[in-house]
Structure formats: structure tokens, C-alpha cells
């Protein structure tokens, strides 16, 4: 099964060396092969040992890998018309695919890992491969941001490794070398004697992950990078790389819940509220699509982390799935939306002719309204369930009033974001001049895939599957 999972990545890597234009089409369609093993993994009885105790498939990582593979397919489809919207050399284009293949390998190891060390190795591999993807845009800004990503990303990933070593040191006296194993750590969490050491390790791991996701105080670095790079890179960041990071946070926080739940909740609660507070005002001031979507991504990742530690597993996973489909779809649409200039929001939804154009603006409108949780968006349901979980936690800890106040503050901050998105949508639809814009079949097809996936996400079998993940 592992071979099947890695096979498409190896084919993409090999094909990226062929200079023929036919290979370009083939590369996009090879990515569909990713779906076969991921679908198979969902149907297998869990836990399924993919490679000894190192790679173990459970319901959680099978779901996250499946979502990521759909995003991967959508992105590769949209990549086919990248040269129609931006100036990209053929060499850079092939290299993009080459590093996408390495990225995908790192991601598989990271998501399916049952070992802290292998999780880190996969994440580092995925991070390093994205550095070159940023540089495929041959601009000075992209070159600068690629270095920024290399350095800040390296610091973040080093913090994660630092935390992993501390966690390993805390559990090694009871588990020996198996202290790297997530499942064993979870099962023996209560036996860890030096809980302070574990918590210090967890806090460091979390800060590293939060930095990578653009949480407080590193709110703008990711937005600047996504602005400087080509739009598919931003889609990969928001739809796939962040999935690999958040699954790590899920795994580590589950163990931390067993050690000291109150410490974990307070730490994550303060961190995420602070992040959403700052991000909401940054969103209010955003003047272009990329930064707007990127900052909104930070807000949603903060909400997912908050729902997860509040015990709202279902809400967090539903929100995660919806965000993983919506955000790449919006990032990929920027290739068309920004046809007449990066900072021209006014009239961005005008000028589309024919069936393809109509479907495009209709889908983008739906995605824009869905990302601000308008019903029947899956985000609407996830936020309802998530806030419900937060109240439930407060009830059990006699903190109901303070939690209600925190939720009220959160709702005010979310309404600021809501206002900005509605304002942007109105400006896109009703202001500005009309310029003719062209939409290509493959990018439309990728948006349709994301749209269908969103609908499937709120069907009862999927909802039941998510509820089953505890």
C-alpha cells in the first residue's frame, strides 16, 4: 500500500525531467492516481499498519490524507494554465512539479506517521520543497520571500524538533525508544513522571507549529510569502501543508490533554484568541486578494485549534475539511480575478462571458460567501458545533460566564471579518469597470471539484465518519 501511495509522486518526479509539452498534461492527470490508495485507506479496517509501527493509518489521518489528495488534484489541474495568467519559464514549471513530488512524499510521511521523529522529517521535507516552489516566480520579491520562508520556516521547524526532543526525554524513562510513538505516548501519558518537561516540550512544539501557520506574533510573514509567490503555491500552503501541521497539533495536544487539560486549554485559548484579534484587524486593512485569503486562513486555523482543544473534535474536523477545500479554491481563482492587476478588487467578478465565465463567477461568489460561514456552508455548522463545545467545557469547569464573554469577543471579531468579505464581494460584483477575462476549462474543473467536495462534506455518511473520530 505504501508503494501505491508513493507511486504517483515518483512518476511526477520522473516526468518532470521530460521537456516535451505532452508531459505537462500527463503530469496533471498522474495526480489523479493519488486518489486510488487514499480511497482504499479510508475503507480499510483501522488501525492499519502501513509500515510497522512507524506509519499507522487511523480514521483521522485517512481523512486528512484524502482531503489533501483532492486539494493536490485541484492544484495540479489549475497548474496546467498557470502560464496563461503569469509569466513562468518552462524550466521553472518542470521544477515546480519536481518539488511538488518531493512535497507530496514528505506530506504522506508526515500525515500517516505514528512517530514524532518521522512526523518531523516529513514536515521538514515538505517545508524545504515549498521553498523552491516560491522561487518559481522569478521576481525579486519572490526571491526575497523564498529566503524569508527558508529562515523563518527553519526556525519554526527547529522549535518543533526541540519540543519533540523534550517530549521524548520526558517519556523515555518509561517507554525507552518507543517514546517516539504517538499511540504509545497517548496510552502511557498518565505515567509520565516529569510532566513539566513534557509540557515545556508541548509548548515549544505548539509555538513552532503556530509560527508556521502564521499565528501571533508572526501574522504577516505567510501572507507576504503567498503574495510574492504564484497562486498555486498559496493553494498548496493553505490546503495541504497546513493540514500536515494541524494533524501534528491534533496528535500532540491529545497527549497533552491527558497530562494536564487545564494548562493545555488555557495556553491554546489565549494564543488563538490573541491571533484572531490581530488577524481580524489585518483582514480589515487587506487591500488585495492574496493577503485577504491568507490572513483569513490564519483565522480559520486558529478556530480549528480552538475547537479541537475544547473537545469539539467533530467541529474541528468539519471546519478543517471545509477550509482545506475553500481556501485553495479561492487562491486558485485569484489567477483569473487578478487578470487586470493585483490590487484591483473592484469589478473583479465582472467581465466573464459564456457558460464557463458564468460558472466561474458563480462558484467564486459561493466560495467567498461560504468562507465567512454563511449557511449552508460547512463552516456555519462547524462554528455552531465548535462554540457549543466551548460552552460545554466552560460548564464542566465553572467558567461559563468568562467563556460566554470570550465567545462574544470572538463573534465581534468574526463579524469584522464578515463585514470585510461582504464589502469585498460587493466591490467585486457591483463596482469598477468591466474588462473581459478568460477562464480555462482545467481551472474551472478544479473549482468544480472543490465545490462538489464541499457538498459531499455535509452529507450524512461523511458527517457520521467525522463523528466517529474521537
Amino acid at each position, binding site marked *: 500500500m505504501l508503494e501505491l501511495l508513493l507511486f504517483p509522486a515518483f512518476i511526477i518526479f520522473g516526468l518532470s525531467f521530460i521537456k516535451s509539452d505532452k508531459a505537462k498534461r500527463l503530469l496533471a492527470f498522474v495526480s489523479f492516481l493519488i486518489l486510488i490508495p487514499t480511497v482504499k485507506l479510508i475503507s480499510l479496517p483501522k488501525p492499519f499498519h502501513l509500515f510497522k509501527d*512507524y506509519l499507522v493509518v487511523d480514521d483521522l489521518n485517512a481523512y486528512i490524507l484524502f482531503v489533501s489528495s483532492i486539494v493536490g488534484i485541484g492544484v495540479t489541474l489549475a497548474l496546467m494554465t498557470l502560464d496563461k495568467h503569469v509569466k513562468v519559464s518552462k524550466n521553472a514549471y518542470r521544477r515546480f512539479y519536481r518539488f511538488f513530488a518531493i512535497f507530496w512524499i514528505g506530506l504522506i510521511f508526515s500525515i500517516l506517521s505514528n512517530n514524532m521523529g518521522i512526523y518531523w522529517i516529513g514536515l521538514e521535507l515538505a517545508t524545504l520543497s515549498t521553498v523552491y516552489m516560491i522561487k518559481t516566480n522569478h521576481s525579486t520579491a519572490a526571491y526575497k520571500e523564498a529566503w524569508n520562508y*527558508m529562515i523563518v520556516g527553519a*526556525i519554526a521547524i527547529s522549535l518543533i524538533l526541540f519540543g519533540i526532543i523534550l517530549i521524548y526525554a520526558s517519556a523515555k524513562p518509561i517507554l525507552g525508544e518507543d517514546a517516539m510513538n504517538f499511540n504509545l505516548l497517548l496510552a502511557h501519558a498518565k505515567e509520565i513522571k516529569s510532566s513539566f518537561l513534557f509540557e515545556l516540550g508541548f509548548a515549544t512544539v505548539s509555538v513552532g507549529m503556530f509560527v508556521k501557520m502564521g499565528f501571533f506574533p508572526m501574522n504577516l510573514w505567510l501572507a507576504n510569502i503567498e503574495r510574492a509567490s504564484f497562486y498555486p503555491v498559496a493553494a498548496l500552503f493553505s490546503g495541504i501543508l497546513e493540514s500536515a501541521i494541524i494533524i501534528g497539533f491534533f496528535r500532540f495536544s491529545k497527549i497533552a490533554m491527558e497530562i494536564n487539560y487545564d494548562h493545555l486549554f488555557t495556553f491554546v485559548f489565549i494564543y488563538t484568541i490573541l491571533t484572531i484579534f490581530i488577524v481580524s484587524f489585518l483582514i480589515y486593512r487587506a487591500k488585495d486578494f492574496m493577503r485577504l485569503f491568507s490572513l483569513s486562513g490564519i483565522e480559520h486555523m486558529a478556530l480549528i485549534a480552538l475547537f479541537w482543544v475544547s473537545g469539539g473534535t467533530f467541529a474541528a474536523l468539519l471546519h478543517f475539511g471545509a477550509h482545506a477545500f475553500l481556501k485553495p479554491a479561492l487562491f486558485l481563482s485569484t489567477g483569473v480575478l487578478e487578470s487586470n492587476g493585483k490590487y484591483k478588487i473592484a469589478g473583479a467578478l465582472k467581465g466573464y462571458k459564456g457558460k464557463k465565465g458564468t460558472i466561474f463567477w458563480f462558484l467564486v461568489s459561493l466560495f467567498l460567501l461560504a468562507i465567512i460561514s454563511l449557511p449552508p456552508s460547512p463552516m456555519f455548522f462547524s462554528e455552531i458545533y465548535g462554540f457549543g463545545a466551548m460552552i460545554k467545557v466552560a460548564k464542566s469547569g465553572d467558567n461559563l460566564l468568562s467563556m460566554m464573554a470570550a465567545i462574544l469577543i470572538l463573534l465581534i471579531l468574526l463579524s469584522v471579518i464578515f463585514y470585510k468579505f461582504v464589502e469585498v464581494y460587493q466591490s467585486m460584483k457591483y463596482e469598477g469597470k468591466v474588462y473581459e477575462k478568460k477562464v480555462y476549462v482545467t481551472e474551472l474543473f478544479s473549482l468544480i471539484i472543490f465545490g462538489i467536495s464541499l457538498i459531499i462534506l455535509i452529507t450524512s455518511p461523511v458527517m457520521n465518519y467525522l463523528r466517529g473520530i474521537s
Partner: protein
Amino acid sequence: MVDFFIGLFLASLITALFTTRLYRLLVWYSFNSLTLGVLALLIGIKIDDNAMLITGIATIVIKAIAIPYFLKSFSQKFHFIRQIQPNIKIQYAIILIPAILVFTFYLAKPITHMIANNSNYVAISISSLFLSLLLMMEHKNVAPKITGFLSMENSLFLLGITATNGMPMLVELGIFFDLLMAIVVINLLFRREEMKNA
């Protein structure tokens, strides 16, 4: 003997912070990696751990020899600026570095009680991590920043061998692989001429 090499490890990192020439910085990084490799070998022999011996040899070959060699060849190939003046003046750095050392020993005090072996080494690893971050921050040029990142990796490695008596072999080999991948990516990032020809 281990104490002596730990001291050398820290001393080489502190010296790197005051260096104003790129090649000399690479020499200090190489020396820092060499002490780390020797430390891994010494601890490996002491606790009779073959995996740590392999790691020690790999550290010396990859980090003390191969990486400094590649970085030097990159600097010649891509014409790096070899005069690297730190942003923090020496008189301030002389105050700042001992402050970091004292602070990290204080910070690591609660942890050191929980680690049975080499408890003070954990404090040194954490201080090395902070000093590596300082190395990254105090330079504007990319090359010293990369050296800072590599030194940070050395500090984490030191933490791994001192706090946990070494991590599992598979993980350590994976970390080495990622480090080599980082060097490949760094090489690709330096190819600015590719941008002009595109």
C-alpha cells in the same frame, strides 16, 4: 573528556558570533560540528550505543567536512560578500552572550532536575540554540544566516544526545537526509542568474 568537548562546542559557537569573515565563520562551524561528532562518539562509547557511534561518524563526515566544503564552494561560485559585519557591536555582544548563558541556565534549572544524565549539558544545548538564533539575527547577509540555521541544528543535535542519550537511529538518519536536502535547496536558491535568463 566530555566536559572538555562540550566546552569547546560552546566556545566555538561564541567565537563564530564575533567573526567578521565568511570563511572563518565556516571554519568555526566546521569545528563546532567536529566537537559535536566527537561528543557523540565519546557518549556512544560510554553507554555502548552503536547507533550513536554511527551518528557521530556521520556528523563528522557530513557536518564538519562536507557541508562547510559545499558552502565554501557556493560562496566562490555565487560570489558571496566575504566581509560579514555583525549588526550587534562587539561591546554589546560581550554583555549579551554571558547574559544569554546565565538566563538559559536559570531557564533550564527546572528541567535539569528531571534529566538523570548530563543534566548541565541540557542547559548548554538550550543556550547554544539561543546563540545560534543570535547568529542568524545579527547578520544581514544570507550566508551567515545559513550558518546560524546549521548551528541551530547542531544545538538540537546536542540536546538530543545529552538529554535523551540519542534519538532512534531512523530519526537521526532522517534528520541528516533533511539537512542534505536543505543544502540542495540553498544551492538552488542561490542561482540568481537563472532568474535573469528566464
